[in-house]
């Protein structure tokens, strides 16, 4: 049994709204989890008021793998610092000396917490360094990712355990969290799809669009555009996160404008809310909402009753 250790809890960044909660529209649906309405991953009810460090910050749930790592500002800021050759070498040596002393101690996790860095990212650094030593060449990204997803593949048993420990204890990064984000994103897409079906709005989803060879695909393209608050909408993108300045700019650049460039104006639903000031591109053709709008106007009809 591992002796309990106490390391000061790192500063947690909490978002204004609770990620991971699907707030279904107030109508027929009730919050799905019967037992708990709230399941923040950094505050699982299981753990109660544990004083054990988790290295948690809030994360933003993201559907697409490519977007899973919308890095937290803090981590982003310090990212470079942890990736200098000296830093990596120091960490690795500390890790080595740590596991030599006691392979079962949470060496890596403690190290990450101590230097205020995400545990799974620390695990990645060490794993990379380790493989480099083993194979004398920088390992490919896909190999590393695969090992992080399934630490059993790591040739060194002790390291495998250390890495695994980091991953399950990280609430912002890592494959497990990435997967949760993806799941949340997907769940909201499903929700949106149901809402569209319910309102008889026919659409093409991402898979259909990709099959047709579209190069950029929003979640849904409406086959017949609708109007919302006087604005035309051709497509709807679901974002299961809170729309803050930083992530919204990134989305605008990588996704929303690209959609506009191809399909015209559209709607983004930030299910966890957004900073109101960001909704400034309405005239230009990008609307923001935090729920599925109830007052859509369709072609040849008046208001669609929900």
């Amino acid at each position, binding site marked *: 049994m*591992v002796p*309990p250790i106490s390391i000061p809890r790192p500063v947690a960044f909490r978002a204004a709204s609770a990620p*991971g909660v*699907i707030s279904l529209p107030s109508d027929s649906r009730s919050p*799905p*989890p*019967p*037992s708990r309405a709230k*399941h923040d991953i950094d505050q699982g009810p*299981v*753990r*109660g008021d*544990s*004083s*054990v460090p*988790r290295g948690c910050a809030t994360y933003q749930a993201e559907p697409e793998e490519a977007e899973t790592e919308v890095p937290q500002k803090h981590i982003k800021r310090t990212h470079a610092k942890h990736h200098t050759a000296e830093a990596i070498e120091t960490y690795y040596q500390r890790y080595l000396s740590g596991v030599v002393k006691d392979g*079962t101690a*949470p060496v890596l*996790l403690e190290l990450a917490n101590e230097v205020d860095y995400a545990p799974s990212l620390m695990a990645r650094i060490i794993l990379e360094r380790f493989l480099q030593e083993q194979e004398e060449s920088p390992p490919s990204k896909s190999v590393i990712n695969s090992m992080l997803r*399934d*630490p*059993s593949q790591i040739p060194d*048993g002790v390291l*495998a*355990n250390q890495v*695994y*420990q980091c991953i*399950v*204890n990280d609430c912002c990064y890592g494959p*497990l969290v990435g*997967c*949760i*984000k*993806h*799941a*949340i994103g*997907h*769940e909201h897409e499903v*929700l949106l799809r149901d809402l569209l079906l319910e309102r008889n709005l026919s659409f093409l989803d991402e898979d259909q669009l990709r099959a*047709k*060879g*579209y*190069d*950029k695909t929003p979640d849904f393209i409406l086959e017949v*555009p609708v*109007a919302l608050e*006087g604005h*035309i909408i*051709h497509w709807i993108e679901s974002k299961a996160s809170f729309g803050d300045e930083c992530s919204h700019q990134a989305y605008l*650049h990588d996704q929303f*404008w*690209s959609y506009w*460039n*191809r*399909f*015209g*104006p559209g709607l983004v639903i930030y299910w966890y809310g957004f900073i109101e000031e960001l909704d400034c591109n309405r*005239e*230009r*053709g990008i609307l923001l909402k935090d729920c599925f709008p109830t007052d859509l106007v369709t072609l040849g009809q008046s208001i669609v009753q929900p």
Partner: protein
Amino acid sequence: MAAVLEALLREEVTAEVAVRWLVCGAQGAEDAPEEAAALAPLEPLRKEFVPFLLNFLREQSTCALPQGPPTPAKAPRASAERPGGPSTARGSGRGVRSQLFPAPAEPPAASLGEPPLARRGGGGRRRGPVRERGGRGAGGSEEGEIGDSPPWGGGWRPRGSNSPSPSPAEPLNLSNLEEFPPVGSVPPGPAGRMKPSRRINPTRVSAERSLSKPKTCFTSPPISQAPNSQPPVLDNSPWGLDLPVGCSSLQEERAMLRKERFKLLHHSPTPASSALESGLPAPSRTGSLTPEPADPGKVSCQPRLELVAIVYSSCIAENLVPSLFLELFFVLQLLTVRRMIHVEKDDLEPSLGGPLKRPLFQNIHDCVFFAVLVLEHQFQVLSRLDKGTLKLLAENERLLCFSPTLQGRLRKAYERSTAKVSLLLSPPAQAVSFQPETDNRANFSSDRAFHTFKKQRDVFYEVLREWEDRHEEPGWDFEKGLGNRIRSMMSQLSTASSHSHFVRLFQKQLLQMCQSPSGAGGMALGEAPDPDVLSMLGADKLGRLRRLQERLVAPQSGSGPCPPPTFPGWQGFFRDFILSASSFQFNQHLMDSLSLKIRELNDLPLPQHEPSDEDVDRQDERRQFASVLLSLRLLAKFLGFVVFLPYQSPEPPPTRELQDSALALRNQVPPVLDVLTLLQQGLQNHQAVLTVPWLVEFLSFVDHVAPLLDYYHSVFSLLLQLYRSLILSEESERRMCFLNKLLLLAVLGWLFQIPTVPEDLFFLAEGRPDALEGATVSLVQGLDTMPVVDQQLLYTCCPFIGELRKLLASWVSGSSGRSGGFVRKITPTSTTALGPQAPKTSQGLQAELAQAFFHNQPPSLRRTVEFVAERIGSNCVKHIKATFVADLVRQAESRLQEQLGEQQEEGGAPAQLLEALCDQICPEGTQALAQGREFCRKKGPEAVRVLLPEETSPAVLRSAEDIAVGLAMEKACAWLSANITALIRREVKAAVSRTLRAQGPDVAAQGERRGCSRACEHHAPLPSHLISEIKDVLALAVGPRDPEEGVAPEHLETLLQQLRETLQCRQFLCLISEQQLAKCSVELASFLVADQVPTLGPPGPQRLERGEARGLLQTLLSLWHEDFQVPVPLQLLLSPRNVGLLADTRPREWDLLLFLLRGLVDRGLMGRVEIETCLKSLHQAPWPEDFSEELATLSCLFLAEPQVPGPRLRACELMRPPRGTVLAQS
């Protein structure tokens, strides 16, 4: 040259003869031999007469119009006068013309403290110094170019010869730019310096009139003026005798005028502004300038004015002047003169020189009189102007006063007119929609090219948006702001050789933004294959309105009646983009693409005019025509811009040698677009109204050398011939419609003012050859004879016509400080989809019969049939794709699945397999033709029946159906037989590669996975929630943790129960979530087996009861077995890491693992062999000695068990080997 004019003024030659002489040369005047004789010696000067006349008029009006220094240093070099003196045609011509559009060499004293009213029209089009065109008209615009460059319209830069002109014009010294202020600075000029004053009450004028003697009004000048201005000759001769017949009615009109005036006098309210009358000379420029009243009774030398007016009008009517609207503008300026600069007495001495020595316009009354006379002759044109202009004209009190008849006619014309030129909202910025047909991966050579283009597309719009946001900010510079981004984009495109794709996007975006008002641009051009909903409803009216408002609030620079080619609004972006990109590849592709599109649109058969339902069709026809024409003009403008871009320079080649060498060089280069042939064809097919306007746009960008090239010289000559032949008064059935002509005259007149177009081209070329006439014999009813042009289109194409209205309006408002105008921007009203082009048939007799069938049917029938054929043919192909090909693809996929198994053993490459598969399947493609025909036969008639009117006779209907079906089949089969194999191959490949890429058992399962039972209300916990929960448990198990931390056993049970619900509901489950859940559950099982899950019992953290652990494992087993639809990574249970968990446990618990392994085998989740392999490989890991031994024992124990599942299960349950047993056995 002045000799002619003088001869005219001396009545030696009648105006009529003079004009005929001008048009046709000596033979034209045969019927008046004496007069012809008088003119004969002047023959060499014939061509110079018109420029001389125009200059003369402008010169004469300087005191009225220019607001420059009060008295130009008009030093008449009287001695130089040598009437009819031979001079070199070139020399004098140039000399004359050079002040036809004089350079504003005069310091702009006049404009001090005044806003430049006409700023450079629309912002220079080149980087070089901007040149203003039509400076003379633009009023004040010269100010902008002082010392800058020669004026635009000014053209006539004396090339080569600076010899003093010996002609009678010389005394005026018009060639001396220093001495003469710009002539044209009138309209904004006078307006500019006047404060808004009230509208002038016409009654005042009438009141004044009553004081004068109406009888003498037209026979003698006002007394005060008489001594100076009336040449004795004229005094003696009756003024009306020599007038052409048409003018004799003037007398009647004047009589009417008098009556009218008399009536007004008695009915009108008291003159409100009579006080103003006396306040004539404005004390200062900034002071208010009330227009001087004009009085028909005070005209100084009517006969002279009348003569000149007649000659002038005739020149206009015969298209001898370079620009009709420029002259109209000039005349309206005269009409709206506010003040006359008082001519010094010396200048008025009649004794000096001939009749030309005396100013033609001695006072405002003269100006107005002359203007009204000319306007009377131009009624035909005036009456076709837009309603707003007509209203202003009809309400002009001077006009009423000088010619009530004309006023009456104008009023009537106004009342009849429906030609409202509306100010429409411009289209919203809309992106070109993504079209899979041209934009998807299949259209690119490589993945990289595809992705590069994807990125560049976004960069393009990013740049566009930034431009939109910032281009109006002061200090923002396109090149600085966006140049680098655009160039890096270009280099990206070059590397990926995707220029053609980008150019297509660029061109479509250009058309969409700059041509179409409704936002349906793509469709309007018939290029979108299917109605494109995306672009149908994109209007963001509010934003547009706002921008429009801004545009109205910020006055646009008045660009005068001859604005230089500009790129207003969005066009500016595209122009600057091309400039900043400065990419050869891009420009080349752009030229190719623009040329192609121009040809395509130019050749578009516009529907013939259908007499049956006039209004609808006419409207439609016009709309179509306008849409095509505007697109063509836009494309041609950009083509011209790009084509001549490399040769542009602010100045012409400085020496003759340089010019000649440039000519020799460039005569070798073939033109990018064969505009000459297109023009000839256009004329032949009576499509000039379509071809010429865009050609003019193209040519407006010529550089200085281009018009001298043999090729373009022919183009210009042809255009000039056309211009001369478009006599507005000649209207007949077979000829061009009036407004069509007017449009051509307007655009050509504008073109001839472009400074790079050499002046001699216009005046020195021989007029009116009959070459063009021959073509009119043809029976074909071309576009020219159809009323396709309306005022809206006219004003859209020639916004400078709107200057007339502005001029009149500024007269009315009296305030022209904002060089105000009502017509700021005219956007076309209409764009509709063009009927898709019908496929051309050439199937011998049948085709001929079909043609004959249509011949006697209404054209709409043909359109319908062709439309149906085109659509059905196209749909047929799609139908085949969706049914027949899709079936084949499915077959291919299933065959592939079969073969994949074999292949894995054989190790064959998937590529070969694919080829083999295609070879098997493709031959079946031939059946597609039969199916396609069937489809057409079924669908064609239905569509035809729906679309044709009900009264269509059954026979006609049947024939129409047959033809439609035939055409559709022809089209579909042609496509299918050529492409079906390739299509099948492509589709199969795409499908197969999709399968291969996503290979894995899970994909196959994906199809059946989705969906839970109908009754399900999807209340199961969300997958994300579960993963998160399990993750917490795992984290607890892995540690580190507080001693008191743990998980309640019931919680674990609940968790697994929730997991089951989620897996059964599946509503929110996606592949990745499920895989993760599977993995997490396996990890959880491992921790359970290793007894590593700390529980939270009443006394504190403990281990799970073994029974509880088994229960949980049991649940997990059944979840894996029954509920998971993705493969569960069960082998992880036996991974060294998870088994290693056991090693840390003291005492070690093997029974749970054994229990689990048995469960796995019993449920068929893992085979014994598989487990055996895993166990064996476990031995290879470095374990502590004792652990290895225990592991070996476990293996033996497990492997020794009987393999019969049924009983063993029970045995297992029954056995429940205590921990001790296992250990004992080890």
